[in-house]
């Protein structure tokens, strides 16, 4: 859950929540149905979205080894699952915390930056057609954050 929200529950014995704090809670709860809706859209179409991306990726990079492309697809599945959970919790740090260090290192070691860059570009395109603008806008910040730590070079361009 959003760290800001978690803090709200930490001081129960000390005082009652202020109106603006209750407002924060209200906002989160109010946004929950939309988040769940976007989460469902991702969950139910995960395979379909990724399969299209995989096909396009292979066509776009015919000289890349299947092994490397498969590794990148697998990583992207994981990234998307973490982003989906982060979106549900409204916690932008969720995916980043899970991926930092570990997946960033993996990408550097296997040097799949080029594949990953194309992959995330295709993935964004695909998500634009499968998700409604509202659903996509809930997911986007999480995906952008993840991309930024995984492919820092491309984010600065």
């Amino acid at each position, binding site marked *: 859950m959003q760290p800001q929200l978690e803090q709200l529950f930490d001081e129960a014995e000390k005082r009652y929540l202020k109106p603006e704090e209750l407002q924060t809670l209200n906002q989160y709860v109010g946004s929950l149905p939309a988040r769940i809706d976007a989460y469902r859209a991702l969950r139910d179409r995960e395979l379909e979205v990724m399969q299209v991306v995989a096909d396009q990726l292979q066509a776009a990079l015919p000289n890349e080894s299947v092994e490397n*492309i*498969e590794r990148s697809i697998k990583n992207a599945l994981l990234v998307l699952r973490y982003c989906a959970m982060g979106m549900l919790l409204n916690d932008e740090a969720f995916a980043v915390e899970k991926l930092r260090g570990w997946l960033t290192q993996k990408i550097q070691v296997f040097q799949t930056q080029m594949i990953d860059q194309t992959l995330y570009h295709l993935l964004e395109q695909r998500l634009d057609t499968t998700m409604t603008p509202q659903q996509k806008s809930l997911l986007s910040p999480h995906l952008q954050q993840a991309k930024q730590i995984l492919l820092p070079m491309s984010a600065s361009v």
Partner: protein
Amino acid sequence: MQRPLLIITLHPPTPLFKLTAMISVADLLTNNRVPGNYFAADTYVRGDLELGILENRRGDRLIAIPETLIQGIYSGLDKETGQASRLVLFNCGKWWGKTFYTRFREELTDYYGVALAEMPMLELLQSLQQCWLTYGWGKLDLDHSLHSHGFLLIKTWESPFAALAPKNEVPYCFLEAGIFASFFSQLTGRELHCVQTTCESMAADCNRFLLGLSQRLKPAEAMVEQRLDHDAIVQRLCA
């Protein structure tokens, strides 16, 4: 397992026929799982406050040790056994490393569904690094530059065992050296020894551990005693 589909493209420049295996995303998932970072700190360490226990994500029990206990072990051993405390620590590390390897193997095999022997070396190393980090033992890296001479160089940073070591004139992470010796012996199936050549407790930039076959690495122990520095030790060992 489903065989990958083969398609034939009929309009290539050269070669005439190109076979491309199509990727099936569904096949990349095992039981609908995409394994992540098993040792990620936030999911690996859990606690049950009511029962008063700390455990890992499989439910194996963990304990946290206070810094003063490590200091106490160092000073108690030194008082009771003097010089021999180094050997005691090394042997404790060897014992610890042996069970550490067994658990590490079990946990990874369970989670990733691959035998350790079949795991790509890079992923195995990454898991070890993450595990080291999450256990609070600091950062770890392997340096293969001495590979052709039959040695592996292990570097660690932020080691609690070095940070709490008593003032000394020789590197003091005997516990870690013992862990490395038995962990890698188990991993490779050969009897390996480990000697530390630089130590954060002596203001070095990191802790360096040389790993190699016992009879080849033995001379390094005396060189450390003679206060030779890391480069000089490596030079003599590889000469």
